[in-house]
């Protein structure tokens, strides 16, 4: 039975892709949830953690835990951030540390959006309509750390007018990888090109994912290549109701 859910929109959505956060809120409200947005929220700490700065990551993680410690559900429009909280907080807070138990308590309450919809809310049809051919990019942490493969596809298949066409290398990394993308731009860009070749091979107009960071990488590479294909977060597709121009 729907109730109240907290949302953690992630720092990148807050600052760069607010429309994704709004779309997520809209979808959740549409199926009956009340949204709790805590203004204390900022980042999960992943940038520092992935860069080897554990102490700094721990401080930010602690802030995250304090912000959401009494929430029953925290829904996140990102597999990567959800995995940081659910898995890597234990690397940040090893068993002997003070925050370990808190991390253990909060971890299972944090849900990536597509998982939350299909497993907690138990809906696949959220009443969306999107008349386009789309292809789905499996983001790495969602796929390999959270084992999210089918949930977003099940949701997409229920969208009216939408055709899902799989690309040949859906599971290959887009090349983002956080600071990797600016530490090794040539390699990161090369990985994106492999991916967009595969996207183009499907003839889809839109590439969908559940992580805005991957989409930022892919959109940047698509635009640089002069491609007409655009990127959309799953939440945006699920929020759509009108035929797209």
């Amino acid at each position, binding site marked *: 039975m729907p109730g109240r859910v907290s949302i953690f929109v992630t*720092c990148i*959505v*807050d*600052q*760069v892709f*607010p*429309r994704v*956060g*709004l779309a997520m*809120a809209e979808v959740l409200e549409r199926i009956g949830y009340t949204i709790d*947005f805590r*203004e*204390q*929220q*900022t980042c999960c700490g992943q*940038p*520092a953690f*992935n*860069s*080897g*700065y*554990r*102490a*700094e*990551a721990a*401080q*930010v993680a602690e802030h995250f835990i304090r912000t959401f410690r009494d929430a029953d559900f925290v829904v996140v429009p990102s597999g990567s951030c959800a995995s940081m909280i659910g898995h*890597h907080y234990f*690397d940040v807070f090893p068993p002997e540390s003070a925050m370990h138990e808190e991390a253990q308590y909060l971890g299972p309450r944090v849900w990536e959006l597509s998982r939350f919809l299909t497993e907690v809310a138990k809906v696949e049809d959220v009443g969306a309509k999107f008349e386009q051919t789309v292809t789905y990019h499996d983001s*790495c*942490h969602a796929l*390999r*750390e959270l084992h999210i493969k089918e949930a977003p596809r099940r949701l997409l298949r229920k969208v009216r007018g939408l055709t899902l066409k799989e690309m040949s290398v859906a*599971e*290959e*990394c887009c090349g983002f*990888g*956080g*600071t*990797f*993308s*600016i*530490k*090794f*731009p*040539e*390699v*990161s*860009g*090369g*990985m*994106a090109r*492999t991916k967009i070749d595969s996207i183009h091979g499907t003839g889809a107009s839109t590439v969908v994912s559940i992580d805005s960071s991957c989409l*930022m*990488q892919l*959109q*940047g*590479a698509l*635009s*640089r290549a002069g491609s007409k294909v655009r990127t959309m977060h799953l939440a945006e597709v699920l929020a759509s109701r009108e035929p797209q121009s």
Partner: protein
Amino acid sequence: MMMTRERLVQIQNAVADTKLQNAVYSATARLKEKRQEVVEELPEYQELRTHAAALKKHALENLDHYLEQFEANVIAHGGKVVWARDGDEAAGFILDIARQRGVKMVVKSKSMVTEEIHLNQRLEEHGIEAVETDLGEYIQQLAKEPPFHIIAPACHKTRQDIAEIFRKGLNTECGDEPEQQAGLARRVLREKFLEAGIGISGANFLVADSGALLIVENEGNARLCTTAPKIHIAVTGIEKIIPRAQDLAVFLKLLARSATGQLLTVYTSLLGGPRRPGDVDGPEEFYVVLMDNGRSRLLADKEKRESLNCIRCGACLNACPVYRKIGGHNYPWTYSGPIGAIITPQYKGVLQDPWLPFASSLCGACAEVCPVKIDIPKILLDLRRDVVAERTQASSNRLEKWAFQGYSWLMRHPRLYALAGRLGAIGAKLPFATRIGPAAKWGQVREVPMPASESFRAQWRKRKAAK
């Protein structure tokens, strides 16, 4: 960026080299797809991985016991175990034997451990010719290049490249057909097998309870290397030990499948010592050189010890999008790809090539295919932490450290974070904004995203007020 200019240029060149990219991408794709097919047909695949990882863990935790057992069994069969602390000691032993027996030529079957200690070079410095007999290794030797890939040393070469290498290296005509090329190599190498006084091999597994070593291969050259010459010397790392012969059932099911997508390799040889009276073939002398060369240091680090689980199948290379872009020659040491990225810093010290653990998007494709379940992304993250710790101690990362301290502080002060975000959004509109700092790096290969003119939190507040 902690990386030499030279290395950076090499990486840029590799990424821009379409021919190389195509060769590597298709060779690794083939191996990757074949592996995928055969593991999907093996219902117990995941259990086998778990079992293999547990066996490796047990063997490494009791390494001294199993190594002693292995040695005792080798001696009982009439062979000899030689303990080598490093490449000097291993090469020293081989040179002594060669000198005593008057050997001028050795044949070698594929061995990454001998690459690790530059054995060929050391032998040649002492006037001993070392001939690689694995086709891929032979091509690389003629091309004067180290192996490009753990199991497919010349996978970056097209058949036209190979024809050219044979023409130059052997001073003879050679066409573009792989069969023809293999035939030519076989003819040349046959002479070498007959002439060589010593055969040097590696080992895939050392079986403690039977004092035998196991070698898998597809060309039959390892079989010849280990039986035709009068002396066989296997050079291998101490971590290759497994407790019992019956454990091979687990590892052999995983190794060929992970490496080449075969159910089993064409040849699987279990070698247990010198020729005994009545044997039809086999060497007169049999030595196993057990190398440490830094392995005991890895063993001491419980957190990353599982790095020694590796059975060198190469599956992680084929799965790795970074390896597939930069190729096998842009890793600082003998071992390339994800496994190279985690063991090189452990063998050489993290500050030697501090960029290496960062050259990954942490996609996890490596760990997904590793037959012995090495958690490569986790080890990369731990190594990043170690790099930062050592650089902080040496005060060589002040700016970066400040940046992350600043980040952490800002993220704990939501109002200031929001304000900084808005200032950033205004700053991003400045004409030069995309030409400096990280935005410029990003913009080298992609269009730079613009921060939204209104953040989520600002829009949310308005939305709530309107309701």
